[in-house]
Every structure is written in structure tokens, then in C-alpha cells.
């Protein structure tokens, strides 16, 4: 039954989630912006360009993949919103990160319910890579 309590709980969850994502997105966005204007981002982009080219993504998008997998989706969003990408590139990144993100924490969780670390990492990273390659070709 929907009562006042439903809305209070929902609002609490909402505020909690927004604060959590702000804590991550704000510093990530800030750092990426500084990297952009100091020329360091360009340097990172050049290093990762050959790999990211397989997915049709610019080199600096590697930051979104790395942060999304090591930290969480919020960190990846901070990167995605601070660099310039086309709609196609954002969708490719979104699919890749959806399959494979927050790997340290989530792998620990799936291990608890009985799947080995290696099979699950291989599956998730494999799906991310395969989807990125395929979407770049078909989109």
C-alpha cells in the first residue's frame, strides 16, 4: 500500500543517491576539465587512441572505461559529460560500461552467490569489448 512513508523512503533514497553521485561526479568532472586545459588529456588521448579506435571512440574515452570499471558508473558519467563525444559514441560507451562496471565491488558480490571471479570477469569484460566492436561496425 502506498502511504506517506513510501514517499519519505523514496525521497531519502533519492537524496542519498544524488549525494553519492555528486561526491564522485564533481571531482571527476573537475579533474578532467583541468586535464583538458593543461593539455594532459590530449596526451592521454594519443596514448589510448589505437585501442579506443576499435570501438570508434576517441582516446580520452579510455578514462571513462577505466574509471567506470575501477570505481563505478557515476565516475564514468563524470568523464562522459566533461569530454566531447557524438551521440553514437556515448551510446557505445554506455553499452560497454553497462556490461562491465564497478568490477571490484560487484565481483565480490557475485562471488558470494557462487560464481568464480575469473569466469565472471571474463564474461563481463568480454561482453563489453564484443559489444563495443560490433556496435562501432553496425551503428
Amino acid at each position, binding site marked *: *500500500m*502506498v*502511504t506517506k512513508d*513510501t*514517499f519519505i*523512503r*523514496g*525521497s531519502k*533514497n*533519492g*537524496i542519498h*543517491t*544524488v549525494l553519492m*553521485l*555528486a561526491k564522485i*561526479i*564533481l*571531482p*571527476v*568532472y*573537475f*579533474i578532467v*576539465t*583541468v586535464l583538458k*586545459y593543461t593539455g594532459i588529456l590530449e596526451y592521454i588521448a594519443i596514448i589510448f587512441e589505437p585501442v579506443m579506435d576499435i570501438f570508434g571512440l576517441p582516446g580520452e574515452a579510455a578514462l571513462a572505461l577505466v574509471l567506470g570499471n575501477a570505481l563505478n*558508473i*557515476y565516475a564514468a*558519467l*563524470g568523464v*562522459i*559529460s*566533461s569530454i566531447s*563525444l557524438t*551521440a553514437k559514441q*556515448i*551510446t557505445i*560507451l*554506455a*553499452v560497454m*560500461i*553497462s*556490461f562491465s562496471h564497478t568490477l571490484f565491488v*560487484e565481483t565480490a*558480490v*557475485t562471488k*558470494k*552467490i*557462487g*560464481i568464480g571471479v575469473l*569466469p*565472471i570477469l571474463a*564474461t*563481463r569484460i568480454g*561482453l563489453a569489448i564484443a*559489444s563495443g566492436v560490433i*556496435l562501432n561496425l553496425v551503428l
Partner: protein
Amino acid sequence: MSAMEIIKEGLLGGLTSVYSIALIVFPLMVFMEIAKDIGALDWLAKSSKPITRFMKISDNSAFPLAIGLVFGLAFGAGVIIQSAKEGNLDKRSLLLVALFLACCHAVFEDTLLFVAVGANGWFLLAIRTVTAFALTAIVSKRIKIKPDKGTGTLSDK
């Protein structure tokens, strides 16, 4: 560009993205609580039975599957562990539900987060769920779990 301008852009840009994401996430959280309280999950679990059959897993898997799909991996895992303790979930279903949820969970939140930064949401949702179902169905055909409880092993036929 001066240092001040860079700092200003870094702060304002970050706040703008947080704001646009908050506009989507906050209502979603309220909506999810409403969904819980009107019993949408039982309904979802019931209507996902054809899917659990398609993946050849027990009907009892439908509830943890629905929970994880909507509310995320941690929540789903909690329900899975609970169902397994109560003996409602055989080893084979447990593994397959866990595999499915590892690849596909919290679909509303994750999808909308990416929509907030400009991704194609329907496309993202469709690719992710269809791939997870297909993968689970394939693995389901290939794994053989011994019928005795608790000591199931993954092995190729």
C-alpha cells in the same frame, strides 16, 4: 584560458551534470518505492515465469531475478542468498540467475543515468537485457549440474 576560468568551468560543468542526473534519479527512487509498495515485484516475478522457463531455471528464480533486474546486484544477491538458504533455489538455477544478474542488473537506474548524459536509452536497455538472456540461455544448455544439493559443478557436456 586563465586558472580562474578553468576552475569555474570545472565546478559549474560538474554541478550542471549532477543536476541533470539528479532530475532523473530522484523521481526514479521515489517511483521504485511506490512500485515496491503496490506489489509490482510479485507481479513482475509472475510475469517473468515464461522467461525463467525459457532459461530452463526453476520458477522460484523469478523473484530474485526480478529484484536484481530492477533494484540492483547487491539487493538481488541478498534475495538469492536468502532463497538458497531456505532451499528454494537449486544449484543450477542459482548459478544461472547469478550469471544473468552479473551482466544485467539495476536496468532502470543504469539506463536512465546514461540517458542523462545523452545515450539512446531504449537501445541500451534492449541490447543489455537481450544479450544477458541469450547468454544465460546458451550457458543453461551447456551446463550440467549434479542433482545432489550443494555440490554442483560447472562442466561442459
